[in-house]
């Protein structure tokens, strides 16, 4: 087992810029990630922050290989997965899981919670792992019979988490998982995630545009802007001594719940 669960070097992703495609011929390439290098040590909680369009979601989707990079290396547990075929990726998939931003659209409305959690396990709904997973995320086991529309936003997001951890993964990517929730469910889901990471020994990459959420949860933070890493620092350092002007701008923009702190 490698010490670093992910080692990413000079990662590049580009897409065809269809708005500038000529009538004949191929569209020009638009670089989304411009050569990104970082590592994620085993057991770390890495925060990935940046404004909209900075490439944080693209980076996440590339890490879990929902997108293929156009250049660079991406070692998962010592193996380069940057250009693995779908078939070669298959055995690794259970070890890499994802929790999605919008809990409603990422759950099939026609499947019960139990079937949703059972699907990636290839299990029946009476499999004990389903009840366990639900219990882990603080939902009663009889929620397995409910449908997504019967749940609140916070509960739906818990189902998303249960589906991810039921696979016993080593790495979980959480992409803006609390941005659609109100403050109290947000706090619940984040505290749950914090406990699970410690209990199950997970490695977590947490994508967010909100630095105030990152502070509590993450041990290290990388700040992305326009497809490049502008700062990569321990959480404490980043908040106390932000080095890059963009990081300071992000920090200044947080609405601190205190009327005496003026913008």
């Amino acid at each position, binding site marked *: 087992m490698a010490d670093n669960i992910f080692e990413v070097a000079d990662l590049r992703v580009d897409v065809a810029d269809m708005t500038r495609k000529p009538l004949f011929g191929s569209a020009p390439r638009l670089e989304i990630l411009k050569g990104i290098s970082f590592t994620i040590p085993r057991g770390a909680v890495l925060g990935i922050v940046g*404004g*909209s369009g900075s490439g944080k979601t693209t980076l996440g989707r590339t890490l879990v290989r929902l997108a293929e990079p156009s250049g660079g290396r991406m070692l998962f547990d010592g193996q380069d997965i940057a250009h693995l075929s779908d078939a070669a990726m298959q055995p690794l998939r259970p070890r890499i899981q994802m929790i999605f931003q919008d809990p409603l659209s990422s759950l099939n409305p026609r499947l019960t919670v139990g079937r949703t959690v059972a699907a990636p396990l290839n299990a029946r709904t009476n499999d004990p792992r389903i009840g366990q997973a639900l219990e882990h995320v603080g939902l009663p086991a009889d929620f397995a019979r409910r449908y997504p529309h019967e749940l*609140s*936003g*916070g*509960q739906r997001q818990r189902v998303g988490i249960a589906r991810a951890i039921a696979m016993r993964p080593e790495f979980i990517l959480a992409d803006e998982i609390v941005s659609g929730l*109100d*403050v*109290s*469910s*947000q*706090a*619940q889901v*984040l*505290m749950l995630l914090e406990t699970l990471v410690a209990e199950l020994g997970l490695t977590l990459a947490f994508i967010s*545009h*909100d*630095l*105030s*959420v*990152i*502070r*509590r949860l993450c041990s290290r933070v990388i700040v992305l802007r326009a497809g490049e890493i502008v700062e990569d620092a321990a959480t404490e350092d980043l*908040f106390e001594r932000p080095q890059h002007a963009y990081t300071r*701008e*992000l*920090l*200044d*923009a*947080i*609405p*601190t*719940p*205190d*009327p005496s*702190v*003026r*913008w």
Partner: protein
Amino acid sequence: MSSFLEIRGLSARLAGTGQRLLRSVDISLPAGSVRGLVGESGAGKSMIGKAVLGVLPKAVEIIEGEILLDGQDLQKVSPGERRRLIGAKAALIPQDPLTALNPSRRIGPQITDRLVDILGWTKARAAARALEVLAEVSIPEPERIMRLYPHELSGGMRQRILIASAFAAEPKLIVADEPTTALDVTVQKQILKLISELQARHGTALLFVTHDLGVVSKVCDTLSVLYAGKVVEDTTVERFFAAPQHAYSSALLAATPRHTDPSSSLKPVPREVTDAVAAEVAVDDTTWRPNGGVRG
């Protein structure tokens, strides 16, 4: 002190199930001041905004209470009269700048239509006014932007256009329903500053619906904390953040992320607190589910 908007004892329910949505809500908003409506999803914050603008979903019926806009009771006038009243005096800044704009029409007419149709302005006057407000919200080259379609603009730009559109008819009251939830933090800051600036300059009363107490502390003068359709605390921003009076308010404040003090933030609202507040507002489980209100 006479208020521009005065809501007295407003109660509403779902027509089908009889589920209570608002419970005897009192809110007063003097001209030129900003009130935040905060609470969890399903607490009824948006519902109040909709009631004020006369755009409640058909399934929601007002049982009792009155909404006085500039002294006139909106419940006592005919629907046509109500539309004209609200159209002339109030406006909305909606949450999602993408769905609020018609994707198949250019920006210009989407701003001017309301001025022409409801206020009876001439097209030329409406267009001139649109250019003026677009410039006021710092949109570069307003003439060119008026001819663009929504998809050609970024989220922040779209939200600026909706703000311009809200201020176009110089309303005395604006309801802002989570206007920055869809935006990222740096854009959120710009947009909030813009709203505050315009509000102050025009002396507009602002009803600001949000679940983010951080935003409330930057924008509002007073706030109402809602739980299950009832106002549990009505106070000024200074007093609230110094010492919230209601246990539920304190719990909500402790749940808010705070990067300057990570250890004392992000605390989930304790069960005892929600149970106590539920008992207080007399919620029986058959008519109300926490976190599962009517979707706006």
